[in-house]
C-alpha cells in the first residue's frame, strides 16, 4: 500500500495529499504538522505566519549528504520575532569532507557536539506548524527536510513554500550572473550586509529579504498570500 501511495501522492492536489498522509501516518511530530491548519491563501500576506529556514549541509544531494545545522526564525505577519530565532547543530551520519568545512566553518569536532537529527527535526516541525516556509533557493531546504522526515517518520514534508530566489527571478526575465544571490538581492532592497553562511543569519537574511520583496510586490496595497507561494 505505502509504495503505491508514494508513487501516486504527488499527483494529488496539496490539501488532498495532506489529508491522505494524515490518514496514513501514525502519531508523530510530522502528523501534528499535517494536522495544523494552514494560512489562508486568499488572505493578505500580512495576516499569515511564516518560518524562514536555512540549512547548512555537507553537500547538495539529500540522498547522500547530511544536514549540519538548522537556523530558523518565525514571523508573525510582517514582524520578524528574534525571540523565536534558533540555531541547532546536527550530528552528521558521515565524516565531514573538506569542502563543506571550508564553506560552513563547521568542523568535525563541532559537528560531533551536534544533536541527533530527530531531536532537532521534532522542534523544527513543531515551530513550523501553521506557518509558511520561507527559504532562499528552497529545493535545498525542502529536499533535505523532506528526506529527514521520510527517514524519521516515514512521510513527506508537505508545506506551503515561499522561495525568495523564485520571487526575485520572477521580477525580471534576464538576470546578471550572481544577481540572484542572497547578498546581492539584499543590497538591491537596501538591506544591511550580514555575514552569510551561518544558518541562522542566512535564515534571518532570507526573512528580511522576503519582507522587502513582499512589500515591493504589494506596493502599499493588498496582496494575497497565494501570489507569493511557490507552485
Amino acid at each position: 500500500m505505502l509504495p503505491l501511495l508514494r508513487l501516486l501522492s504527488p499527483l494529488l492536489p496539496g490539501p488532498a495529499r495532506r489529508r491522505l498522509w494524515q490518514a496514513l501516518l501514525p502519531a508523530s511530530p510530522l502528523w501534528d504538522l499535517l494536522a495544523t491548519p494552514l494560512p489562508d491563501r486568499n488572505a493578505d500576506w500580512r495576516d499569515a505566519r511564516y518560518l524562514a529556514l536555512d540549512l547548512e549541509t555537507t553537500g547538495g544531494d539529500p540522498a547522500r549528504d547530511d544536514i549540519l545545522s538548522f537556523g530558523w526564525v518565525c514571523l508573525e505577519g510582517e514582524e520578524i520575532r528574534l525571540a523565536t530565532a534558533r540555531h541547532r547543530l546536527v550530528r552528521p551520519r558521515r565524516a565531514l569532507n573538506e569542502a563543506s568545512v571550508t564553506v560552513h566553518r563547521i568542523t568535525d569536532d563541532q559537528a560531533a557536539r551536534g544533536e541527533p537529527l530527530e531531536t532537532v527535526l521534532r522542534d523544527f516541525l513543531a515551530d513550523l506548524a501553521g506557518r509558511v516556509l520561507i527559504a532562499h533557493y528552497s529545493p535545498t531546504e525542502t529536499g533535505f527536510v523532506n528526506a529527514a522526515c521520510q527517514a524519521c517518520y516515514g512521510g513527506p514534508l508537505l508545506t506551503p513554500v515561499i522561495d525568495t530566489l523564485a520571487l526575485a527571478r520572477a521580477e525580471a526575465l534576464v538576470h546578471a550572473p550572481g544577481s540572484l544571490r542572497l547578498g546581492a538581492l539584499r543590497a538591491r532592497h537596501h538591506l544591511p550586509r550580514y555575514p552569510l553562511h551561518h544558518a541562522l543569519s542566512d535564515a534571518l537574511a532570507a526573512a528580511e529579504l522576503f519582507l522587502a520583496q513582499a512589500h515591493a510586490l504589494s506596493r502599499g496595497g493588498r496582496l494575497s498570500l497565494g501570489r507569493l507561494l511557490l507552485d
Partner: protein
Amino acid sequence: MHDELAEIRDFLAEVPPFHQLPGAELEALSRALVIRYLRRGSDFPPAGPAHLWIVRQGAVDLRQPDGSLGRRLAEADSFDAACLPDSEEAHWSGHAREDTLLYGLPLERLQTLWQAHPELRAQALEKLGERLRKARRHQEGEGRTRDLSGLQLAQLITRPPVQAAPDLSIRAAAALMTRERVSALLLVEGGCLAGIVTDRDLRSRCLAAGLDDSSPVSTIMTAAPHHLPPEAPAFEALLEMTRRGIHHLPVVRGHEVLGLVSSTDLLRAQGVSVVDLADRLRRATSLEELARTMGELPELWLTLARRGDGATALGRLVAGLADLLTQRLLQLAEARLGPAPVPYAWIAYGSHGRQELTLFSDQDNALVLADSYDPAKHGEYFRALSTSVCDGLAACGFILCPGEMMACNPRWRLPLETWRLTFLDWICHTDPQKARLASNLFDFRPIAGDPGLSQPLAALIATESPRHETLLAHMVTNAATRPAPLGFFRQFLVARSGEHQGQLDLKFHGLMPLHELARIHALACGCGATGTAERLRAAAGGRHLSPEGAEDLLAAYDFLQALRLTHHRERLAAGQALDNFVAPESLSHLERQRLRDVFGIIATQQRALGASFQESRVL
C-alpha cells in the same frame, strides 16, 4: 546557542543608550527584538503596540503637527517617544525616507530594562528634552516663532532699499513711495546715506507746513539718520526705535545701505522673553522691580546661549539691557530729585561701551555735563543723581568699579570743556598712565541724556588720535606688558599657584590684548566704532593692518569669545560664579591647538604693531 545573533548584538552595542550595557544583557536584549521593514514612503512608527524603534538601515523623517521637520532618524538612531509619558514627539507623524529596516524593542521589555537601569530612562527623558529644544530651534531657523534677540537685522531685510537722491522733488519722492508701497524713503548721495523721509515727514513737514511740493526732498528729510549694522540684534533696533520715537531704521554696513527695517517688521518677528524683559525694565517703577527683572537675565542668557546665540549677539543683548536699565534708573532718580539743572550725557565705556558685556561685568561710566555747569550750584544734584544710578546698577548685578572710575566719583563727572582738555592732554602729552586711562575711556558710548554733549569728545578722539602716534605707541607698550602665555615649546604658561593654579586667564591674556589691538588700530585710522570686531573690520587694509592680519585677529577674537561663552555657560549651568579662567587640559586637543595659534597670532600682531610705530617715529 551562543553567538548566533552576533551581528544584531554587535549593532546594539553601538546604539546609545544600549552601548552602556554589558555583553550578556545585550545578548538577551537582541533576542527580544522584532524586525520590521518599511518601504520608502511608508508610515512610521508601524501600527501596533508601542515599541522602541531603532533604525538598522535607512532613514525616517518625523514631522511636527505644523508640517515642519522635527527630527530625522538615521542608522542607529532610536525613537522611544511612544514609550515615554507625554512625549510631544509621539504626536509627530513619520514616514520612511528610504527603504528602512527597523529593530523594535517591545514596550514591556523596555520597561523591564528601565527598571533594572533607571539611569537609562533618565537619559531617555533628557535626550527627548534636548531634541525638542533643538526642534524648536530648527523651527525658528525656518522662520516661525522667533525671538528678536536671536535675530539679526540682516534677516529682517526683505527687499533692497527703496532709495532716491536728496535733490528729488517732494512730489516725485511721494510718487516713488506710493509706487513702491513703502512708508519711508532712503536718500542716498554719493553712495552714502544722507537722510530718510517718512510718511510722517510728508505730512508734518510738507503738507502741514504748507511747503511747495517741488522743493527738494532734502528740505524735509531727517539728515544723517540713526542706523544699525546688519549684524545688530533686532532687539537693539526695537530699543533704538522706542528710545527715539521712530518707526524706521536704516541698516548700513560701512557706507553701503543694505535696507530698511520698520517697527512692523520687528513686531512681525517678535517673540517673547527678551522683549518682555526689556519692556518690564522700561515700565519698572522701583529699584526692587528693576533688580528683580534683571535677576531673570542669567536664566535668559543661558537659554539663549544654549539655543546657540553667539557671544557677539549676547554681548550686545546684555549691553542693550544695561542701557535700558541705566536709562530707567536715571528717569527714576530724576523723578525723585527733579529735572537736571543743566544738560548732561551719561556715557558708558569699557566693555559696556564696546557692547561686549558679559554677565559679570563691573560698571564703567562717566558723566559729561554741559559747560554751564556750576559746581557750587549743581554739584550736589549730580552727586546725588550719579550715586543713585551707580548704586542702582550695582544692585542689579553690575558691580561697582574697583578703580572708582564711575560717574559717582567727582573725577568722572566733569563739564564738556574739562573732558575735552583732559582727553587732549591724554592724547598730546601722553605717558603710560594716561595711555591706560585713554584705553579705558576712549571706548565710550552715550547711553542717556543729551548725546550732543559727548559727540564733540568722540570727534576729538577721531581727529586727534591718528595724528599723535605717541599715545598709540604707549598703548602698544602697555599691551606688550602682557606677553602671550606660551613657553618656548608653545606649551601653555599657566598660573603656578593661588586660586587659579594650572589655569589660563582668557580675558587677561587673550581678550584684553585683542580689545587693545583693535582699539589702537581704530584710533590710528580715526574710526569712531567702539566694537572690537567692527574696529578690526574698519582698520583692515589700512596703514598698520593688512587684510590678512585683520582676518587672523577677527578669527582669534571669535574663537576666544566662543571659548569664554562656553566656559560661562558651563559655570552658570552648574551654579558657579563666573570667571575667565580655563584649565588647558579641560579643552579638547583641537581647542588647545587653536588656543596656541590664537596666542601666537596676538603676539605676532603686537610685535608687528610695535615695529610699525617705531618706524613711523623714526621717520
